[in-house]
């Protein structure tokens, strides 16, 4: 499923192509923005498909409301803004206008978690927890271009509110489109092993792969499970995976409360006597700004630091 190291590549402004292709294939899709189109890599649609593009200005609440209205007129709206605003600024509108509707409404959250260079106000590290508490909502955190692209297409056929974290800028293509098929709720084993089970989503699945490369070299017995769908998730797959390991580590580009780690704890606790779960992510604190490398280092989420922390749970 993972491409061999030599085939892994970085794709610039992937969403520009993904959105353009989507709009060309599905003429009822409307891309939207709240004055951040270019900052979310939306260029071609805005220029070449103006009839499939609606700009609302810096008004995130209205973006979601208008999107829900477009859905009620028969379109498939896809809103876009940064993750901090996509979640925190218009949560009631998402829940009320999209979350109680059968119409598909897709909200994309770019530069999610700590992947924005500006601290606090531009970083949204609570969104996965917020969104998965909405009944019937669909919540997706893809790891790279491959699953982002496929998931967005499937989102268009999913009724109700779909919240998805986006990838902007130069983005990895690490999953093999030939063998990876995104299905809602499915979990994807990326590496196999027995002692330490590492569960991750979104950007953090990239981080997990990086750490795993190091751990593999070091001969540390571990496996990787990528969970792109936060909700609804196949609980049995999570349970089977967790109970097949001695230690579980969750890694997410999110606060370590309420998100993926919280989800895994909730699911395994239903069974009882599950292995210890070490939740890695943003540890109940504000992240600094700066390059993603800098921020990851700050939280020991850089490849080396992360590998050490994962290996460390064996102590």
């Amino acid at each position: 499923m993972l491409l061999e190291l030599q085939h892994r590549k970085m794709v610039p402004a992937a969403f520009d192509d993904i959105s353009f292709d989507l709009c060309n294939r599905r003429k009822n899709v409307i891309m939207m923005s709240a004055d951040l189109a270019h900052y979310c890599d939306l260029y071609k649609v805005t220029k070449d498909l103006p009839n499939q593009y609606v700009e609302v200005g810096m008004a995130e609440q209205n973006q979601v409301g208008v999107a829900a209205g477009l859905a009620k007129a028969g379109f498939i709206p896809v809103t876009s803004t940064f993750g901090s605003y996509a979640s925190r600024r218009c949560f009631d509108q998402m829940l009320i206008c999209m979350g109680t509707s059968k119409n598909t409404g897709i909200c994309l959250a770019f530069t999610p978690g700590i992947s924005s260079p500006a601290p606090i106000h531009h970083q949204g590290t609570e969104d996965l927890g917020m969104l998965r508490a909405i009944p019937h909502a669909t919540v997706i955190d893809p790891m790279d271009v491959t699953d982002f692209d496929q998931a967005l297409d499937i989102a268009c056929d999913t009724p109700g509110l779909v919240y998805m974290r986006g990838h902007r800028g130069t983005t990895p293509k690490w999953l093999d489109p030939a063998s990876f098929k995104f299905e809602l709720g499915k979990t994807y084993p990326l590496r196999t092993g027995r002692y330490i089970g590492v569960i991750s989503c979104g950007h953090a699945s990239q981080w997990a792969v990086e750490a795993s490369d190091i751990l593999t070299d070091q001969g540390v017995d571990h496996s990787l499970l990528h969970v792109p769908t936060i909700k609804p998730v196949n609980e049995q797959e999570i349970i089977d995976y967790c109970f097949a390991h001695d230690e579980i580590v969750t890694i997410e580009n999110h606060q370590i409360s309420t998100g993926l780690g919280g989800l895994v704890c909730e699911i395994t606790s239903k069974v009882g006597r599950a292995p210890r779960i070490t939740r890695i992510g943003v540890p109940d604190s504000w992240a600094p700004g700066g390059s993603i490398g800098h921020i990851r280092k700050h939280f020991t989420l850089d490849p080396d630091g992360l590998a050490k922390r994962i290996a460390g749970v064996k102590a």
Partner: protein
Amino acid sequence: MISNSGKRIKTLELWAAKIRRNVVDICMQRGGYAGQGVALADVGACIFFDEMRSDGDGWYHDRFINSNGHDTIINFAAMVEMGIYSMEALRTMGADGSTIDQSPIEGARGFEITSGSLGTGVSQAAGIALGERMKGSDKRIICLLSDGELHEGSVWEAFMFAAHYRLSNFVVIIDNNDLGATGKTSDVMAVEPVRKKMEAFGFKARQINGNSIPEILESFEEARSTKDQPYAMIADTKIFTGIKVYQDAIPFAHFVGANGRWATGFLKWEPGWNEIIGTIERLENELAALDSSVSPISCFQEKIPIEDSESKTFGDYIFESTGFDNQSTILSG
């Protein structure tokens, strides 16, 4: 459309009186937003029985979004007359297990949005208006909101948007009743001058007596002939207009409770009930005296049979088809 004759107006007055009666009937059971519903009856009558065009199939070609949840009591009251809901069903409003919500959820019969979280309807209505225009449809979108909703910044986002996109198929009606949940809007948080605000936000706007059917009709006509701009009808109303004994009794009440209890006293339902029944009889007599060869309402000449007067409840009609059973232990989160 019926010509702007005395008959047209009298007919709408009758529909309005019936809406008032139905509103009172509902609220007499276990309380409700009686003052607003009674006062909005004229606007409601004009929307449901004059302005909106039929789709020829028992519903409307045009689309009406009532942003303020509890003001939808006028939608219910009008839909009774259209045979969409039975009075019997509506009388359960607010009762445990009732399928009739005071603020309806999207998908309830006759409702397009989930209302009740105030201020969220205007953006949706504007989105519908843009969407319909994009499809090349000539549908007109009418959105009713309350003066209290003008406190919510999101409605100003929606207004700015509607003007920027020159949504001339979009009409907002503002129920300017100077009433909020805890007092007069002018005390709680003043919104006047509303017309100036709407004009500055790019609307063609007119402030009217929201209980004058001729003024409402004229305003709708102006809306239809407005080009390149959305339109705002600022309907000044006063709660309970149309039922004098209630209006004399209650200067201010957001909600009239069961047994007529309201903020500072008790209301006797019966005198008002008798008054509105009297009004209906008078109007029916006056109408009969006029030439009755023209069918009063083109859209709903005959009542549509009530197929299923119980609308489904939330959770039933939401997400029947997602393919995921969120209650199961296998797929959840």
